[in-house]
Structures are given as structure tokens and as C-alpha cells.
């Protein structure tokens, strides 16, 4: 009898335990139901979300290599000129559909002046070294009266610098080409600039990084055009230093009795080479192979 009573004394404890257990089970069930699968796998988030972030979008910008698979010529041309670093799809838009359809699906071919002016419109906020124009001013400068003419009439967007065919064949510097339109055979004219003269382009408009780099070096006071005689009618246009032989540097740096103290440092040639211990097999060694530092970096963009 007493045993029976003792047993009854614990009944409420069992009930309490049962309630607690039910609560725990209920909580576990609620957690199972509310917390998604893979939550907490890597952190306080759904692990599976990472996989969907990787896969739910497909790349649409395919890159120049894909373009070159079919348009090798265009890409090669493009890689040689001022737009070399402009990715194809910056102008043409994403190429995925076009590439997958092997050219059957159209790709954007931006038209009108706006397509060029999106980058080349003169804006106060654009870096000064970046080529930019007011197109009406530019048309006046190059002598185009018809405003309906598009930029592409002169500039091939893949090879924008050397514009029309004559120019491209001659490799004339585009700016000097335009000077010669008026100044050809008029050397006797006054050098004072007339009021209605079209704006004159500075080297830095197009070659900003090079000009900037040059300004910090020993030749900074020398004009660009002193070395870059940019109307030579062959492949070396504007690049006289590249194929320069020592005589070019000696134009200024030959030791001569009649020079003043502030003249450029003069040397005796070819004794200078022997003094420097240049060996006979280096006979082709050019001045710039040792003196590059005095001029400007060779691989500055543009």
C-alpha cells in the first residue's frame, strides 16, 4: 500500500518530464521545419545559396579571345591602334548570343556620333590626357562642313588614328596631315597665329601619359617634335628614336669647341663607346640602349 502511494507521488514528475520532452521535440521539429536545409553549413546563411549565386546567371560578356575566333583580322587591326585596350564588347555589347549562334544572331553596331562621343565628348571631368573633342570644333578643324557626316567617314573605329586610306598608306601623322592642307608650300608665311586659326592640338591630347612621363626626365625642356619628326613618309613616322642611329643623338651631343657652358653634354664619337667598354659585337648598340632613362619610358600607354 505504502509502495503504491510512493509511486503515485512521482506521477506528476513523469508528467512534467513528458511535457518537457514534448517541448524539446516540438522545438526540434519547429527548427527542422523553419531552418532551411544547408543553413549554417558554412556560416550563418544557407550554404546552397552560394551554389545558386554561381550558377543562376550565365556570363554574357565573352571576351576578345572569343571574338578573335571568327574576327581575327579585325581584332589584329584593333590591337595595333589607339583602341587596342578597349574591349570589343565595350562598344559592341555582350557577345554571348552572337557567338553561340556563330554570327547568326546580330551584335550591336553602334552608330552615329554618339557612339564615339560617349567616350570622346569633351567634359571637364574627363582626365586631360584623354583625347576628347567638341565635335563641331573638330569638324571645323578638319574642314568638314557637312554636319551630317559621321565620325566613321574618316575614323575606322578599329583603327581610329590613321583615318583615311591615303593617310594610312603614307603613315603620316594625322595632325600634321591637317596642317599641310593649308600650310603646304607656304613656308614664307608669318608664324603668328591668325585669329580664325582652327584649334591647335597639343601632343598631350593624345599622348598624355608619354608627355607626362617625359616631363620628369632630363630632356624635359626639349620639344617632342625636336626628335619625333612626324612627317617622315615611312613606317618610322613619329618614332624616329626607335630606328635612330647614334648620329641622331649626336646632332645635339657632339663635343665641339664652340659650344657654350650650358649646351647639352658633348661626347666624342665613337671614342665614347670604347671608353664605356662596349665590345665590338655590340656594334649595333644604339644610344638609347644605355640612355633610355634620359628620354621617356618606352612602354607608356598610347
Amino acid at each position, binding site marked *: 500500500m505504502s509502495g503504491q502511494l510512493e509511486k503515485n507521488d512521482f506521477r506528476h514528475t*513523469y508528467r512534467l*518530464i*513528458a511535457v518537457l*520532452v*514534448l517541448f*524539446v*521535440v516540438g522545438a*526540434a*521539429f519547429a*527548427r*527542422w521545419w523553419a*531552418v*532551411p*536545409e*544547408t*543553413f*549554417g*553549413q*558554412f*556560416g*550563418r*546563411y*544557407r*550554404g*546552397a*545559396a*552560394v*551554389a*545558386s*549565386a*554561381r*550558377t*543562376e*546567371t*550565365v*556570363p*554574357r*560578356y565573352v*571576351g576578345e579571345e572569343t571574338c578573335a575566333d571568327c574576327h581575327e583580322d579585325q581584332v589584329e587591326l584593333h590591337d595595333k591602334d589607339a*583602341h587596342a*585596350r*578597349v*574591349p570589343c*564588347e*565595350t562598344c559592341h*555589347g*555582350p557577345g554571348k548570343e552572337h557567338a553561340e549562334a556563330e554570327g547568326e544572331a546580330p551584335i550591336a553596331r553602334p552608330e552615329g556620333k*554618339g557612339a564615339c*562621343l*560617349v*567616350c570622346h*565628348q*569633351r*567634359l*571637364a*571631368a*574627363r*582626365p586631360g590626357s*584623354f583625347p*576628347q573633342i567638341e565635335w563641331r570644333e573638330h569638324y571645323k578643324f578638319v574642314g568638314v562642313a557637312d554636319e551630317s557626316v559621321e565620325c566613321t567617314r574618316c575614323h575606322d573605329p578599329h583603327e581610329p588614328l590613321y583615318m583615311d586610306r591615303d593617310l594610312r598608306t603614307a603613315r603620316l601623322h594625322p595632325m600634321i596631315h591637317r596642317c599641310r592642307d593649308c600650310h603646304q608650300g607656304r613656308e614664307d608665311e608669318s608664324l603668328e597665329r591668325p585669329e580664325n586659326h582652327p584649334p591647335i592640338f597639343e601632343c598631350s591630347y593624345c599622348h598624355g601619359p608619354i608627355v607626362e612621363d617625359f616631363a620628369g626626365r632630363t630632356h624635359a625642356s626639349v620639344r617632342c617634335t625636336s626628335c619625333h619628326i612626324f612627317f617622315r613618309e615611312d613606317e618610322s613616322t613619329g618614332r624616329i628614336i626607335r630606328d635612330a642611329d647614334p648620329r641622331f643623338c649626336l646632332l645635339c651631343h657632339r663635343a665641339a669647341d664652340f659650344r657654350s657652358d650650358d649646351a647639352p653634354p658633348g661626347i666624342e664619337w665613337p671614342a665614347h663607346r670604347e671608353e664605356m667598354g662596349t665590345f665590338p659585337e655590340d656594334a649595333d648598340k644604339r644610344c638609347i640602349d644605355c640612355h633610355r632613362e634620359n628620354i621617356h619610358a618606352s612602354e607608356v600607354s598610347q
Partner: protein
Amino acid sequence: MSKELSRRELLKVLGAGSGLLLIHCGPVPPLPGTETDYDWEAHFWGYAIDTTKCIGCNACMRACRAENDVSEGVNRTWVERYRIDAHESVRVDIADKGDYVFEPVAGDVARAFFVPKICNHCEKSVCSQVCPVGASYMSKDGVVLVDHQRCIGCGYCVQACPYGTRYIDPRTHMADKCTLCYHRITRGLQPACVASCPTGARMFGDLKDPKSTLSTVLRQGRYRLLRPEMGTHPKCYYLGLDREVV
């Protein structure tokens, strides 16, 4: 007697059952999309913007929109144009209409420049901290992402971001943001904005790789961060930033 035993058995069964349920939330098999050779623990992605190179063509913005199908009226990345006059009064505008082209504006400027903006993918991202449902998180390779199955669109993260780079998508009514083109970078491609930048103003790279272009640039130490006082440890490094930009 049998009654008490069955009760004990019941407890055992219930205990084991709840234990099983708890185990159920533990390890799971590998995820689809993670079986490729991309190891997310081997990378930690960062971003740099050279403001002296930005020409404000907005190619990045157009590329981002096309690549990620960004809704009308919101942006994942954009370019701000600063115009500061002689009295240091600052005007900032963005080209987020039509073709996203900056037009010339009249008015005196002492100096002017472009500043591209993008999610900073902060190491201590406040947007992830405030998310009540764990929909916002940073992946192990350092990209702050949104789980669109979890997001409830409460907008806490949008308010928390000190850089204003998050938005509530008008189509899905969920938070959204720059993913650093996670679908591209995990395939070895560059984010669309970097891949389309014509001047190399935008740089993307691996902070864990000391030889990456980004690490090389950052080693020179000539960068600034936006709002470093917020303690968010942003990973978007700005080169050549004007003192006016914070």
C-alpha cells in the same frame, strides 16, 4: 509495471527521435555548382578603382546592367561626376537615364573628376550583420551576396550600408546588390564592369595572391578607402581620389 516500462521506452524513442532531427540539420552532401575545381578558400577578392583613369563613359554601368539584368531605376554600380568650383562648392551628378551618357554642363569648375562607385564588399559588412534571416552573407572568398530564397525584403541592409550600394529590387521586392559578378569570377573571368572598362580604371583581383595586379598596386600604399571610420573594412581601394570624396 509494464505501463512504467513503456513510458521509459517512450522517452527513449522520443529522445532518439529528437536527436535524429537535430542531426538532420548537420552536414550535407556537396552542393551542385561547387564540384568544379574552383576553391573558394584559396581566394579573397578585392577591387580597386583608379579615379585618375576614369573617363566617365559608363561602359561599366551598361555592362553590369546587361550582364546581370539589373532592373530599371536601380544600379549596382554607377559613376559619379564631381564638379567643384573655386569656392569649394561641390556638385555631384550621375548619368542614370536613357543611354547613361554624361552630357556637358555649363558652369565654372575649378576641378572636376569622375568617381566610380560599387559595393565595397566589406570584410565586416554591416549589411550582413543586420539581416534578420541570414539572407545576406559574405562568402569565404570575400564577396557579399544575397540569398534570394531567404530575403524577406525588410530593407534593413539597404539602410545599414554606408555606401548606398544596396537597393530593393522593384521587380522582386527583395534586396539586391553587386555580386562582383560571382558567376564570372568563379569561372575565372573578370566582373563585367572590369571586363568592359576601356581605360583600365577598374581593377579586380585576389588579395590572397601576392602576385596579382591588385596586390601589387596595393603594396604601394597609395590608396584611400571610403568612410574607413565606419569600421566596415571595405575592400574597394581608391587610387588618386580627390580630398572632397568621402
